[in-house]
C-alpha cells in the first residue's frame, strides 16, 4: 500500500513539475515564470542601476557610457569600432526583446519562436521578398568597408551583452513567450531596414485603381485621383524652377487592362503613415539661426520604436534617435547641422500580371519570348511542429503571388509578380553615417546620395544659416501614371526602365519664403519633370504648417514646440461650414439642436477637452460613407476610395453629384437629406457608444489612444491616454498612432535640442523608466536634450566598457 502511495505521490510531483515547466499555447511555463529568483520577479527593477566596469572578452577597446537623469546613454569612445560596439551593447541592454522580435518579424521567422499562430505572417513576409531584399542589401553593405566595420562592431556589442546573460536576466517577454535570445548578425541590420521599407513604402492600390477604372470609368479617375485640390501645396513649392530636362521614358500606346478584378488585399496602403518636418531660416527666428523640427508619425508602442542616444568619438559627436538594429543616429543633430525625415509616398511597389507557359510555372512570357523563372524555397521553422517549406516563384520583376478572384466566373487563379524597391540592394546606413558627421550642406547632400529606401523628405538646417529639403530615395523613372494600376507583365514598357538620377530628385535650398517643410503631401508642383505617384497625403497638414510658418516672425524653439501640438483640422474647416449650411435644422430634436449649436461655435481644433471633434469625426465619417458606400460596397471588386480633401471639394462644387443618391432606395436622395440623416445617425451612435450627450463625449476619450506593447502583451501597454490631435492636424495623434518622436533643434554657435517620445529608454516593463515619458509626451512637453561636448562630471550612473 505504501509503495502505491509513494508511487502516486512521486508521479504527481513529476507531472506537476513538468507541467509547470512547459508552455501551453500562449500561457507561459508557470512554475518557471513565477520563480522569485529567475522568473519574472527577477525583472522587477528595485533600484537605479549602479555604475559598473565591464571587462568583456574579445574586446580590447575602451568606451564610457554616461546615463543622464532620463537614462539616455551618452557614449564616449576612442574610435569608431568601440563606439558602435558600445551602441550595440547598450541598445541590447535596454531593448533586447524589441531588437530581436522586429528582425524575426522582418525575416519571416516569428513561427520559429512563437509557433504557428505567426505562420501566415511569416509566409506573407517571405512571399513579398523581404529576406530576398535583405540578402541583397547585405551584399551592398559588405562592399563598403566602413559600413561593414560598423555593422560588425554593432553586432559584436549586441552579442557581448547577450553572452553576459543567464536565463534569469532575459527580458521578461522571453520568459512569457519562453524562448532564448539568439546571436546577432549583420543581416539582421539589413532585415530591420527592410522592415522600415515595409512599414513606410510597403503598400499600393494598383488593384483598387484598376478595378475603379473598370467599374467607374476614366472620367471618375481623372476627377477624383488626378485633379489635386485647390489648397494642395506641394513640398517643393511651385516657385522652384527646374534647370534640367527629365530623362525620357517610353510609354505604351494604350493602358493595359487586367484580366479580371483582382484583390491583393494584404498590400493596401494604410492611411496615416505620415510625419511632419520643417526648418525656418535665421531670417525668421529670434536667434538669427535656423530652427529645425521633426515628428515622424508611426505606430505607438511600448517600448517605443525610437531610442535616444549620443555618440561621441573622434570625427563624430551626434545626438538623436535611432532604430534598434541600426548603428548610428537616424534623426538628430550635431554641433553644426540638424536633420529629420518624413515619408515620401512615391509609388515604388507595382504588381505585374504574369502569363505562364503552363502550370509548371517554369516559363513566363515577356518581351516576345518565354523566359525562365527561378525558385526560392522558403524554409519556415515552426515551434513544436514540422518545418514548412514554401516555394516562391521569381520572375525578373520579383516574387509571384497567387490570387483567387472572387469575381470572374471561372475562378481562375491570377498570378502577379511584385516589383518593389525593397528588393533593391541598398546601403542606407551610409547615409546616416554621413549625416551624423555632416558639417554643412554639401556633406548632407553627399550623405543623401547613398540613400535608397524607404524614400524620405530629408529636412536640413545648419549653423551656416542654410536650410534645405530633399525628397530623397531611389525612384524608378516612370511614364505618367505608370504602375498606379496593375501592370502588364509581358510588355517591357511596363518594367521600371531606369531611375531618376539622384541630382534630379526634387529639392530646394534656402527658398525666398524663409522656410522648408513637408507633411507627406505631393512632392513637387506639376512642372517637375518626372512622375512619382498620384496618391499623396491630403493637403491638410502641409498647408497648415505653411500657413503658420508664413505668418510667423522672430520664431523661438518654444514657438516650434507649440506648433507641433497644433490641432487645427483643415478637414473640418473645409467641410463643416458646408454641412452646417446644408443641414435641415428643422428636422432635429432638442438634444440634436444643442449639438448643432456646439458645432456652429467650434473653432476646428481637435482638442481633447472638447466634444465637437468627437461629433465631427462621427458625422463626417457617416456622411462620407453615406455618399460612397452604397456604390462602393455593392460593387463586387475592391475599389479605391478618394482622399478626404478631394472628396470635400467635389461634393461642395457639385450639389447634383449622382453618388448622393442611395442606390438601395427607390427615392432619389438629396445632399441635404444625406447630411441630416447622417447627423441624426451620429447622435444615436455616440449616445449608444458613450452614453447621454455630455463630458463622456470629449474627444480625449473618443480618440481612443492606446499605446500597446510591441507584442501586444496585455498589461504591458498604456491604454486610454486622454489625448488631443487627429490625423489631419499637425499633432497627428490618433488611436495608437501618431508623433513617435517630437524634436526641435536650434542650430547656431551653441546647438540646442528638445525632444520627447511616448515611452522611455528602458524596454523593461518592470522599470519606472519604461513609460516615464508618456505623460510629458501627451501634454506636449519636450525635454531639453543633454548634448555633451565632453565627458560629463554629473550623471546618473555610468558603464565603463573595457
Amino acid at each position: 500500500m505504501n509503495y502505491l502511495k509513494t508511487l502516486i505521490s512521486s508521479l504527481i510531483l513529476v507531472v506537476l513539475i513538468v507541467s509547470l515547466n512547459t508552455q501551453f499555447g500562449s500561457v507561459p511555463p508557470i512554475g518557471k515564470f513565477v520563480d522569485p529568483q529567475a522568473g519574472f520577479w527577477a525583472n522587477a527593477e528595485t533600484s537605479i542601476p549602479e555604475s559598473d566596469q565591464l571587462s568583456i572578452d574579445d574586446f580590447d577597446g575602451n568606451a564610457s557610457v554616461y546615463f543622464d537623469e532620463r537614462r539616455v546613454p551618452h557614449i564616449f569612445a576612442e574610435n569608431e569600432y568601440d563606439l558602435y560596439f558600445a551602441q550595440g551593447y547598450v541598445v541590447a541592454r535596454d531593448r533586447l526583446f524589441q531588437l530581436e522580435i522586429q528582425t524575426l518579424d522582418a525575416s519571416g521567422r516569428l513561427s520559429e519562436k512563437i509557433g504557428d499562430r505567426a505562420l501566415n505572417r511569416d509566409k506573407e513576409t517571405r512571399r513579398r521578398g523581404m529576406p530576398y531584399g535583405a540578402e541583397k542589401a547585405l551584399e551592398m553593405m559588405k562592399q563598403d568597408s566602413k559600413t561593414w566595420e560598423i555593422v560588425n562592431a554593432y553586432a559584436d556589442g549586441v552579442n557581448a551583452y547577450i553572452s553576459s546573460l543567464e536565463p534569469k536576466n532575459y527580458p521578461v517577454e522571453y520568459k512569457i513567450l519562453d524562448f532564448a535570445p539568439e546571436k546577432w548578425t549583420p543581416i539582421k541590420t539589413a532585415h530591420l531596414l527592410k522592415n522600415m521599407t515595409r512599414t513606410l513604402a510597403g503598400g499600393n492600390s494598383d488593384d483598387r485603381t484598376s478595378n475603379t477604372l473598370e467599374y467607374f470609368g476614366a472620367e471618375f479617375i481623372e476627377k477624383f485621383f488626378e485633379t489635386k485640390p485647390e489648397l494642395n501645396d506641394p513640398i517643393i513649392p511651385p516657385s522652384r524652377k527646374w534647370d534640367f530636362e527629365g530623362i525620357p521614358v517610353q510609354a505604351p500606346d494604350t493602358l493595359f487592362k487586367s484580366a479580371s478584378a483582382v484583390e491583393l488585399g494584404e498590400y493596401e496602403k494604410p492611411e496615416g503613415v505620415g510625419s511632419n518636418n520643417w526648418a525656418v531660416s535665421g531670417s525668421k527666428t529670434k536667434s538669427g539661426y535656423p530652427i529645425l523640427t521633426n515628428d515622424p508619425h508611426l505606430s505607438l508602442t511600448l517600448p517605443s520604436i525610437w531610442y535616444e542616444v549620443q555618440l561621441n568619438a573622434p570625427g563624430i559627436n551626434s545626438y538623436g534617435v535611432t532604430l534598434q538594429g541600426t548603428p548610428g543616429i537616424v534623426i538628430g543633430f550635431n554641433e553644426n547641422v540638424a536633420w529629420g525625415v518624413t515619408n515620401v509616398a512615391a509609388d515604388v511597389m507595382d504588381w505585374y500580371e504574369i502569363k505562364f507557359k503552363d502550370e509548371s510555372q517554369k516559363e513566363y512570357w515577356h518581351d516576345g519570348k518565354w523566359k525562365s523563372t527561378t525558385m526560392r524555397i522558403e524554409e519556415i521553422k515552426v515551434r513544436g511542429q514540422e518545418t514548412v517549406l514554401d516555394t516562391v516563384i521569381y520572375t525578373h520583376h520579383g516574387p509571384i503571388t497567387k490570387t483567387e478572384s472572387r469575381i470572374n466566373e471561372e475562378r481562375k487563379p491570377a498570378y502577379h509578380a511584385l516589383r518593389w524597391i525593397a528588393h533593391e540592394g541598398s546601403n542606407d546606413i551610409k547615409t546616416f553615417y554621413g549625416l551624423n558627421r555632416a558639417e554643412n550642406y554639401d556633406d548632407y547632400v553627399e550623405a543623401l546620395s547613398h540613400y535608397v529606401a524607404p524614400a524620405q523628405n530629408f529636412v536640413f538646417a545648419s549653423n551656416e544659416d542654410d536650410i534645405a529639403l530633399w525628397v530623397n530615395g531611389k525612384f524608378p523613372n516612370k511614364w505618367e501614371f505608370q504602375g498606379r494600376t496593375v501592370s502588364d507583365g509581358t510588355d517591357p514598357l511596363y518594367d521600371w526602365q531606369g531611375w531618376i538620377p539622384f541630382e534630379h530628385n526634387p529639392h530646394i535650398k534656402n527658398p525666398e519664403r524663409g522656410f522648408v517643410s513637408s507633411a507627406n503631401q505631393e512632392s513637387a508642383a506639376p512642372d517637375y519633370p518626372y512622375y512619382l505617384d498620384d496618391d499623396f497625403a491630403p493637403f491638410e497638414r502641409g498647408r497648415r504648417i505653411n500657413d503658420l510658418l508664413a505668418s510667423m516672425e522672430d520664431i523661438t524653439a518654444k514657438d516650434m514646440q507649440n506648433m507641433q501640438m497644433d490641432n487645427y483640422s483643415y478637414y473640418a474647416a473645409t467641410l463643416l461650414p458646408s454641412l452646417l449650411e446644408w443641414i435641415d435644422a428643422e428636422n432635429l430634436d432638442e438634444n440634436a439642436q444643442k449639438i448643432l449649436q456646439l458645432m456652429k461655435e467650434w473653432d476646428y481644433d481637435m482638442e481633447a477637452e472638447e466634444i465637437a471633434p468627437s461629433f465631427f469625426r462621427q458625422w463626417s465619417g457617416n456622411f462620407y460613407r453615406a455618399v460612397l458606400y452604397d456604390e462602393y460596397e455593392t460593387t463586387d471588386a475592391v475599389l479605391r476610395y478618394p482622399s478626404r480633401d478631394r472628396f470635400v471639394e467635389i461634393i461642395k462644387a457639385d450639389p447634383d453629384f449622382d453618388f448622393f443618391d442611395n442606390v438601395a432606395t427607390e427615392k432619389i436622395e438629396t445632399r441635404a437629406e444625406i447630411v441630416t440623416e447622417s447627423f441624426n445617425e451620429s447622435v444615436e451612435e455616440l449616445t449608444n457608444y458613450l452614453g447621454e450627450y455630455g463630458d463622456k463625449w470629449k474627444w480625449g476619450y473618443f480618440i481612443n489612444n492606446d499605446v500597446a506593447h510591441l507584442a501586444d502583451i496585455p498589461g504591458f501597454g498604456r491604454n486610454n491616454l486622454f489625448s488631443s490631435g487627429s490625423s489631419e492636424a499637425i499633432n497627428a495623434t490618433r488611436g495608437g498612432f501618431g508623433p513617435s518622436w517630437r524634436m526641435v533643434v536650434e542650430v547656431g554657435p551653441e546647438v540646442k535640442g528638445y525632444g520627447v517620445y511616448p515611452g522611455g529608454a528602458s524596454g523593461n516593463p518592470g522599470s519606472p523608466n519604461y513609460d516615464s515619458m508618456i505623460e510629458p509626451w501627451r501634454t506636449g512637453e519636450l525635454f531639453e536634450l543633454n548634448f555633451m561636448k565632453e565627458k560629463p562630471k554629473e550623471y546618473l550612473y555610468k558603464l565603463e566598457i573595457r
Partner: protein
Amino acid sequence: MILLILLIITAYLINLVFPWWAIAITGLILGFQMKPASGKAFGIGFLALFLLWSGQALYVHLANDGILSTRIAEMLGVGSPILVISITGIIGGLVSGLAVLSGSLLKKNFSKK
C-alpha cells in the same frame, strides 16, 4: 518547526544555483531524512515554500512599487498584484508539499525492509 526552517533555507540556497524545480530535490531529501508524519509532511512542505516564495515576491513587489506585478496581474487576468504574489507562493508550496510527502513516504518504504 526545524523542518520548516530547514526547508526554507535549503530551498532558497539551491534556487540560487539551480532552476526552480530544484526546490523539489531539497524537499525530497529533507522529507526522507526528517521523516515527518505523512499527515503533516505535505502541510509543512507547502507552508515552507509558500512563505519563502510569497515572501520573496512580496519584497520585490514593494521594492518595485508594484510596477511589474501590476502588469503581470493584468496579463494573467487576475486583477490584483496580491493574487500574483499568492499564486507564486501556492505554486512553490504545491511542489514543495508534494516533494516532502514523497520523501517521507519513500523513507517509510525503506524502513519497512
